[in-house]
């Protein structure tokens, strides 16, 4: 299966989506990412039982922070899929890339360029 996903997505591997913390998502936005999403295992299928559920709650927290700051919360998202679903991984990557394309560059970056 040689599937390609949008090249503007940088994949960071972690042992479990539960490893991703609020600060990691915020730092990504702070450092200029236009969007950031977590691809975790299917809910109920976490090897560590609740890692992906925790990840979702953290994503929701970051969405609220972005909302407070007047930044589109859709720039941060949680997806669930199994490790065997290559085509779904690509689908999600394309969906997220399209969403970010529609939203445009992060307000953090727009100001940076203007300055």
């Amino acid at each position, binding site marked *: 299966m040689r599937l390609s996903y949008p090249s503007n997505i940088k994949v960071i591997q972690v042992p479990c989506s539960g490893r991703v913390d609020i*600060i990691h998502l*915020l730092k990504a936005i*702070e450092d200029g990412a236009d969007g950031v999403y977590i691809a975790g295992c299917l809910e109920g299928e976490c090897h560590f039982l609740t890692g992906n559920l925790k990840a979702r709650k953290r994503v929701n927290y970051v969405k609220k*922070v972005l909302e*407070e*700051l007047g930044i589109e919360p859709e720039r941060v998202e949680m997806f669930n899929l199994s490790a065997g679903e290559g085509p779904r991984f690509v689908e999600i990557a394309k969906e997220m890339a399209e969403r970010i394309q529609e939203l445009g560059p992060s*307000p*953090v970056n727009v*100001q*940076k360029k203007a300055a």
Partner: protein
Amino acid sequence: MIIADRKPLAELLEMIQDCDRILILGCKGCVTVCNVGGAKEVGILASALKIARKKEGRTLEVDERTLERQCDPEYIEQVKNEVGDYDAVISMACGVGPQFLSTAYPEQRFYPAVNTTSFGGAVQHGVWEERCAGCGQCVIHYFGGMCPIARCSKSLLNGPCGGSAGGKCEISKDVDCIWDMIVRKKTEQGRLEDLLDVKPPKSWDTARDGGPRRSVREELVQ
């Protein structure tokens, strides 16, 4: 422990509007335990404030530090060399922290990042509830180990009132009627007659009504 909630980011941004360089000071005491002002939350707030500033096209330099406690001068002293290097300092401790800091460093501006709400504990992971009102004269032993001063909306000592329905307080369906719980517990224990002992009006001299409180342990005073 002392429970607090973080202030809205807009309020904090307003406080530091004219600042380019700030220090966020966390506390490893109560606010770390209730996940609002420890090292982790300091990092999150720093990042959020920097994102907000970048969005405005301005920069904000933020240093992060978390003290053992902010309610003891010996720990407050640990920032003496750097506290003057900033335009302002945000304290993530309870209301005590920014006051101790302001006293120790009168030339600096200190802003509270949290709203201190109550004395309480975690009833489940992520949920904290008030348990003590700090009235200065503990009476929980009369009420089955439950404090009607902190946990009854009216602080009734001879309750319940007519607003108790289905075990809930009339102010909200999310608030248990503590008097319902007290009566139930006393009934289960077979000690309901304890509640026949009518409590006279409580003296609030030891509470806030008597003015700011002070505790002195002579054996420790140097």
